[in-house]
């Protein structure tokens, strides 16, 4: 998970601020530098949320387009990375909600098969992950936005608090509520997975 040591240095802040300001004024080279810094992060969030690389790349492109358009209004009162996480989390949950649940495994990312891995187990794991993604997408917005940052963005409680600009206690409360609902909605899936891994 991303941790506090990921925080940019003072020099990094200054350089990033310069890139943001120049991008906001339409300097595409400066924006390219920002995309170089953060495209891995955004694509990773999108892949974890959507499970399909081509779709994730499209959503990641949408995220950067939104960012490019919104940069003129960006204020440096919170770290760019936290703001970007929030934009990315919103975009991927929107994409998840728009998307019809599919049964086919075509195009879906799978972990590399280990020696002797049972295709049936892989398919079951995949179904479970898809169910989790759609369960997250179906949560009330304040729960969904919070847990998306943890599950897809791999942010800590503290980073989520900064990204959403809410107290740490509120993050705990929302994650508590979100996970309770997820367990209710995933019900037997979680219980059967527990039995499989026991």
């Amino acid at each position, binding site marked *: 998970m991303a941790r506090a040591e990921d925080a940019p240095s003072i020099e990094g802040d200054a350089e990033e601020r310069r890139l943001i300001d120049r991008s906001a004024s339409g300097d595409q080279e400066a924006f*390219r530098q920002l995309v*170089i810094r953060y*495209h891995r*992060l955004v*694509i990773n969030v999108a892949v974890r949320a959507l499970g399909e690389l081509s779709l994730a790349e499209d959503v990641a492109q949408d995220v950067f*387009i939104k960012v490019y358009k919104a940069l003129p209004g960006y204020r440096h009162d919170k770290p760019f990375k936290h703001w970007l996480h929030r934009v990315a989390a919103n975009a991927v949950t929107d994409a998840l909600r728009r998307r019809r649940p599919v049964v086919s495994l075509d195009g879906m990312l799978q972990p590399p098969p280990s020696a002797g891995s049972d295709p049936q187990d892989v398919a079951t794991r995949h179904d479970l992950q898809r169910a*989790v993604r759609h369960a997250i997408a179906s949560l009330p917005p304040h729960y969904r936005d919070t847990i998306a940052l*943890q599950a897809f963005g791999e942010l800590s409680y503290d980073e989520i608090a900064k990204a959403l600009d809410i107290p740490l206690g509120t993050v705990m409360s929302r994650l508590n509520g979100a996970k309770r609902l997820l367990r209710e909605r995933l019900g037997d899936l*979680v219980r059967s997975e*527990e039995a499989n891994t026991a």
Partner: protein
Amino acid sequence: MLSHATTRDWLIPYADGMLASDERRRIDGHLAGCAACAAELRQVRELNLLLVTLPAAPPVAFAPFWLKLQAVLPLRRSLRIPTLRSYRRLGLALAMATVAALAAAGSALAAPAALPDNPLYPIKQLEESVRIAFTPAHDRLTYQLQLANERLREAQAMADDHKPLLAKSSLRAFRVIVDDAAAALKNPADPKVAKDALRTLRVQLAAVERDNANRGEDDRDVKQLVADASRELDRIEQPETVGVPSTIVVGEQATPDPTPRSTPRPTPRPAPSDREHSD
């Protein structure tokens, strides 16, 4: 001793490691004697496991990602096209149609040969962006080498024409292309072809340096960029000396390295702001 209800309320932050040590001890105390809460904790942990094991992104090359993004950025910014995928594809299709139309009139416009100080140069940039985005993987290295050679030809011409800013932009663009092609050059399908290509690039680099110096200006920045580019080629030819990955990939870590580079990453090609008057 904590109550059953209170313990259940705290199981999720407990499983996430968010409780202080004394709170954890109190929960531990309850869990030791409550099978129902222990079972619920197992479910909480199973859900957490599901969340953290969502697959991460595999390595993805930066250049094609940026080129696709760049192809639609100006359109979206100026024309305010909605962010629907179909519209973006339409934008790309329009760009390709434009390139095709321009290619049809290629001999008259001569955009492919345009230098950075030529008004047709942006058309050349557009054509290259579209072409590389649609070049199949097995042909990409060939096209990248062609573009790298073209950037050096431009740099040489600009240095020769007393235009160090444009020469520098072309050299920076050269380094980006070489950087993106580095992995393929280190493990080429045909080592002899790669070796010949690198030799050609070195000859051209030397020509840029010679023309820069011959103008009597010996622009320091151009000279530095030539030296940097030469070192980049050294790193490709001697992989054991490589200290930093030369390709940009995703998926190796959840968040990017926030530490800034000490030097700005080079531009893919001369930016409009770098343009100098041709006279």
